[in-house]
């Protein structure tokens, strides 16, 4: 009778304990960020592995998402004789939603899992403890630069995704399907607002970058130091990262575009 109840309680306590550890961990990272200003080289190297190496998948996905939006949008809009609005449809979809969200999902899959696996393996092979033995703070040397790199890379990746997607839609809509080039751009410029659409999209991507990177480094740092533990942590990074991004996206959308 009391067995299942006890298990439920244990799960609940474990969940909140992990949540608390995650937040304490975040505060510890944030406290070490100012020290990174003295060693920007560390961050640059991490931006390379987190941002530059993710660029290819972002470019290809952005192009194809834009092209698909162009194709689908054209098919639907031409039913209403509104093909000229294709530019607006593509740009708004990318800038408001797909740019930040798809980039964050790809980012969690490509860069987040790599971060978790790297940090988890460092922990499993006791490199982190080794650093502590040498009086090097692993939070400062390993975790904080990776966190900052992810946080900085994500908005840039999302912007690249949206921009290349707009050109993908342009390529399909104007190049292949014969939408007027002037109408594509002018309708887009008339209806996409810098403040309401672009800035809000950038804010979204900043929030997603923060959360996805936080989850990735925390899962790595908190992983059970065995090969199985690291593999589980990597899976959790992708799953939790994706869920957090999608959930937050709803909240942010409701706040930004809800009125």
């Amino acid at each position, binding site marked *: 009778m009391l067995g299942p109840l006890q298990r439920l309680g244990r799960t609940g306590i474990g969940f909140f304990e992990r949540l608390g550890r995650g937040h304490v961990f975040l505060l510890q990272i944030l406290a070490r960020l100012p020290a990174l200003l003295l060693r920007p080289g560390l961050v640059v190297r991490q931006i390379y592995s987190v941002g530059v190496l993710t660029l290819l998948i972002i470019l290809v996905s952005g192009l194809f998402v834009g092209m698909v939006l162009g194709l689908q949008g054209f098919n639907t809009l031409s039913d209403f004789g509104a093909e000229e609005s294709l530019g607006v449809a593509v740009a708004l979809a990318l800038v408001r939603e797909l740019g930040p969200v798809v980039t964050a999902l790809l980012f969690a899959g490509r860069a987040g899992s790599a971060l978790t696996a790297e940090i988890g393996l460092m922990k499993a092979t006791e490199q982190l403890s080794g650093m502590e033995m040498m009086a090097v703070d692993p939070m400062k040397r390993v975790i904080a630069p990776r966190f900052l790199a992810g946080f900085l890379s994500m*908005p840039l990746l999302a912007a690249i995704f949206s921009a290349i997607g707009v050109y993908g839609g342009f390529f399909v809509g104007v190049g292949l399907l014969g939408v007027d080039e002037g109408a594509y751009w002018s309708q887009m410029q008339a209806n996409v607002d810098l403040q309401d659409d672009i800035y809000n999209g950038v804010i979204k991507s900043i929030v997603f970058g923060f959360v996805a990177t936080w989850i990735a480094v925390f899962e790595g740092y908190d992983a059970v130091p065995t090969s199985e533990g690291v593999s589980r942590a990597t899976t959790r990074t992708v799953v939790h990262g994706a869920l957090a991004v999608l959930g937050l996206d709803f909240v942010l959308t409701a706040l930004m575009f809800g009125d």
Partner: protein
Amino acid sequence: MKQSKAVEIAVGLFVAAGMAALFILAMKVSNLSTSVNGESYTITASFDNIGGLKVRSPVTVSGVRIGRVDSIVYDFETYEAVVQLRIGNSYDRFPEDTTASIFTAGLLGEQYVALEPGGSEDNIMPGDRIQLTQSALVLEQMIGQFLYNTASAEEK
């Protein structure tokens, strides 16, 4: 150190590409290049009915976009909607008897304020109120009037 130089160049290119993408989004995709930049002034106009006019709707003269709607409030003194129009300073020589009308772009398009200059010698000053206005056409009212007219025509 060769490795790290290549890394730094790659990161530099990445950051530059990200900035360029943001710049493209701001300049080419959004309305930054078409919005009213720099100096501007406001005039007001009262309408019986503004239909679907919204803040930031365009203000045009002869189809040329010269500004946007700054604010819309309801005035209990006159029981009319007071629309404040923000117009670029390069368009500052409208006659006093300019007419402001609310039109719809296309059948289902957004609504905008169109100014039609009159023939007066005196110019409108910043902060002035446009006297001659024409309200938005509400489709339901038009259909209602049309049905009423046809019904009364049949009776005769």
